């Protein structure tokens, strides 16, 4: 029997939400790791019972938890994230050199084929890899060692590596994004990297079209067409048709092109979703109306999806890892808010319902489609 499992990370713990394929009635378990910040949880595509979670705390540091039974029980694995060699410096907010310091794991990306292989994107920005189910971690230092590294600078949320996309067609290729350095691609399994930011324009930079320094908020791809990438930048929704070699803006008729999330319909590679947020100074929806906007043309032409979402007095944010889609025939779309709501749509965004209303601030939402 088909079912879905939502993995929700919040400021004060993790929650696992499950439903059958109708996605009408939800069972909520949690909080797991109560009181800890859970930046991200994600299940292995190769073994859905294998789930990794990033558990962190300003007091007690970073932990990585692993479940081998679909989130019922958890065990801490290794939490040693040591930068390779002498870490060196990046730029601080004021432009002065600042030593690289590990703070937390923002994003976990399990391998598409091996349950024991998993990647972790961390703050200060770096990419780590485990080949043994999280028992040990090693930095893929070619990224941070890119010549532009000393010029990377943190965004307001910290200098975080928050997006990792694995190319299903080419195991040697992956894409990552860093706030506020930009997007990068490797074609050799992580040994070497190149910035892929041509076409981005960021007015807050001295050179708005510089090779690095852009505050990329999120990347998304459709697994059948990994050369096409979508990006929610700080401002601007962007699209690349050549694996990031060049980008063009597709913000079109969006009410604002600031936002954090972006995702792609599971069965329609040209159908994409964003949640417009008023501005970088006002992190809430325009006019207090929470709206998902959908383009069925790969950008430029957008429509508001509001049925079931609050259309007055709503001043929440939707953070960069807090939207996902399932792979059921009628694509499910889910997102969580800083107000603690998790919304779901079982009909590709036409109608929405509140799955749970009063969680701690939601940091991330991932979904597993289970058969």
């Amino acid at each position, binding site marked *: 029997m088909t079912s879905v499992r939502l993995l929700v990370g919040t400021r004060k713990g993790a929650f696992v939400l499950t439903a059958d394929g109708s996605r009408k009635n939800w069972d909520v378990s949690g909080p797991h790791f*109560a009181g800890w910040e859970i930046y991200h949880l994600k299940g292995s595509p190769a073994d859905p019972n294998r789930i990794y979670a990033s558990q962190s705390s300003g*007091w*007690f*540091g970073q*932990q990585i938890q692993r479940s081998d039974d679909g989130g019922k029980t958890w065990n*801490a694995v290794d*939490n040693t994230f040591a930068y390779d060699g002498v870490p060196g410096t990046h730029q601080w907010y004021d432009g002065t050199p600042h030593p690289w310091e590990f703070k937390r794991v923002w994003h976990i990306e399990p391998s598409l084929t091996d349950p024991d292989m998993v990647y972790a994107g961390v703050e200060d920005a770096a990419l780590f890899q485990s080949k043994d189910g999280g028992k040990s971690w090693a930095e893929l230092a070619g990224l941070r060692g890119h010549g532009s590294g000393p010029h990377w600078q943190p965004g307001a949320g910290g200098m975080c590596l928050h997006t990792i996309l694995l190319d299903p067609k080419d195991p040697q290729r992956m894409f990552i994004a860093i706030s506020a350095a930009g997007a990068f691609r490797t074609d050799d399994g992580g040994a070497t990297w190149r910035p892929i930011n041509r076409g981005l324009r960021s007015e807050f930079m001295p050179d708005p079209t510089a090779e690095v320094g852009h505050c990329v908020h999120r990347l998304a791809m459709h697994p059948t067409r990994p050369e096409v990438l979508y990006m929610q930048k700080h401002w601007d929704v962007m699209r690349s048709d050549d694996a990031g070699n060049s980008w063009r803006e597709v913000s079109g008729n969006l009410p604002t092109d600031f936002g954090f999330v972006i995702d792609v319909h599971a069965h329609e590679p040209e159908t994409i979703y964003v949640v417009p947020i008023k501005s970088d100074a006002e992190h809430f929806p325009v006019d207090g109306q929470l709206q998902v906007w959908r383009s069925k043309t790969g950008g430029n032409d957008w429509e508001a999806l509001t049925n079931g979402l609050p259309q007055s007095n709503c001043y929440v944010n939707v953070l960069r890892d807090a939207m996902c889609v399932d792979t059921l025939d009628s694509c499910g779309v889910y997102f969580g808010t800083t107000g603690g709501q998790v919304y779901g749509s079982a009909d590709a965004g036409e109608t929405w319902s509140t799955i749970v209303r009063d969680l701690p601030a939601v940091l991330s939402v991932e979904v597993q489609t289970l058969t």
Partner: protein
Amino acid sequence: MIRVVLPSHLKKHASINGEVTVEIEGPATQRALLDALEKTYPILRGTIRDQGTQKRRPFLRFFACQRDLSHDAPDALLPDDVVRGTQPFLIVGAIAGG
């Protein structure tokens, strides 16, 4: 036998109820105490002191015998009452909130 009281989050994290006790061989210092604690409970590595620098995590404090030992050198001897087990060594999370 040294008694250690952990903050509630770490007790839960390590599945500990109440106080824990640790045995130290050699000089009874903060470093030796934390080494012994982490040896008994490896899951606590990195939660009390940074794994790389071995420095106390900034939002934790060490109290004992009505004194703040947080800024004592790692190799300073612990108070006699802690070493004898008549007073616990308290690891305290800094208060936050508003």
